[in-house]
């Protein structure tokens, strides 16, 4: 625990120095707020761009609050994922390259504590950013589109948080495995894409890759007003459990690889 705190406090100083704690939450807030705003202003945007020939009748269906919030969250699955991976891709491989790792590990710090502290600080930052972003998304959805239940939004946020924790864990894992940060980013993003595609194509509702679609499914349940559908959906629970198991396995593998690679 003591060792964990040593690496943790170093991590906090580090992420303050490289401004991660500022820019990551800000970017998530912007991503979250952008969707309801652009949905709301869509008729004006179309009118201003003026690309429509005279007499065109476009019918834009009134967007539902849940749908808009779900779309805002799906921004985190594209741009948000990229930003997250960029933020954490070098967390361990950079320190190895710059020799910081040697300085840390001559102190009485176990390899396990090092990896866990690194991982945990990344997770805390990610969840903070996601929560702030979702608050912004929720606020703008309610102001511009319509009412949206807080419990449903929170449930959806929770599912998304699990998905992003998995991504952060993958980034940590590959950061131990590979020295190149760019290769790390590439491999992490492609494995996230593969997870999502496989879950969608094979209809593996229990797979971690299905988490984002569960998150938006919850919101469309709110739109339809059928509360009962939620209670019967055990597959959501399963996908969370499976994600938890995968995260633990990845962490164990990271510690193992890290110990094997560092001869100290």
């Amino acid at each position, binding site marked *: 625990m003591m060792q964990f705190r040593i690496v943790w406090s170093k991590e906090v100083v580090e992420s303050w120095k490289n401004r991660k704690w500022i*820019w990551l939450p800000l*970017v998530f807030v912007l991503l979250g707020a952008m969707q309801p705003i652009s949905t709301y202003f869509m008729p004006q945007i179309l009118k201003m761009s003026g690309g429509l020939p005279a007499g065109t009748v476009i019918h834009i269906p009134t967007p539902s609050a849940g749908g808009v919030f779900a779309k805002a969250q799906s921004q985190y699955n594209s741009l948000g994922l990229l930003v997250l991976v960029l933020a954490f891709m070098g967390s361990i491989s950079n320190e190895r390259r710059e020799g910081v790792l040697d300085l840390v590990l001559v102190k009485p710090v176990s390899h396990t504590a090092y990896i866990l502290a690194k991982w945990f600080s990344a997770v805390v930052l990610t969840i903070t950013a996601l929560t702030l972003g979702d608050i912004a998304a929720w606020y703008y959805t309610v102001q511009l589109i319509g009412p949206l239940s807080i419990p449903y939004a929170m449930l959806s946020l929770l599912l998304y948080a699990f998905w992003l924790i998995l991504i952060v864990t993958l980034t940590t894992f590959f950061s131990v495995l590979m020295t190149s940060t760019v290769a790390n980013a590439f491999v992490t993003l492609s494995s996230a894409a593969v997870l999502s595609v496989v879950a969608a194509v094979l209809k593996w509702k229990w797979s971690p890759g299905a988490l984002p679609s569960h998150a938006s499914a919850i919101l469309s349940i709110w739109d339809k007003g059928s509360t009962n559908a939620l209670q019967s959906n055990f597959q959501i629970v399963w996908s969370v459990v499976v994600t938890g198991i995968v995260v633990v396995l990845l962490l164990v593998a990271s510690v193992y690889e890290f110990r094997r690679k560092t001869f100290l």
Partner: protein
Amino acid sequence: MSIPISALLPIVFIELILLVIALIDCIRAESTNGPKWLWVIVIIFVEILGPVLYFVFGRKNR
């Protein structure tokens, strides 16, 4: 239909904060990865992603 333009203000404000923080950091840095003037341009003209790219790739440690 009146457009609540004021709704946009917080967002513009947050984007400005992001831009200004990146800009100050870039200008005060002794050196950056790649020419500094290029990073200033990227930060100012690439929305949202510009400052992020600077923080990830532009900064030199120590």
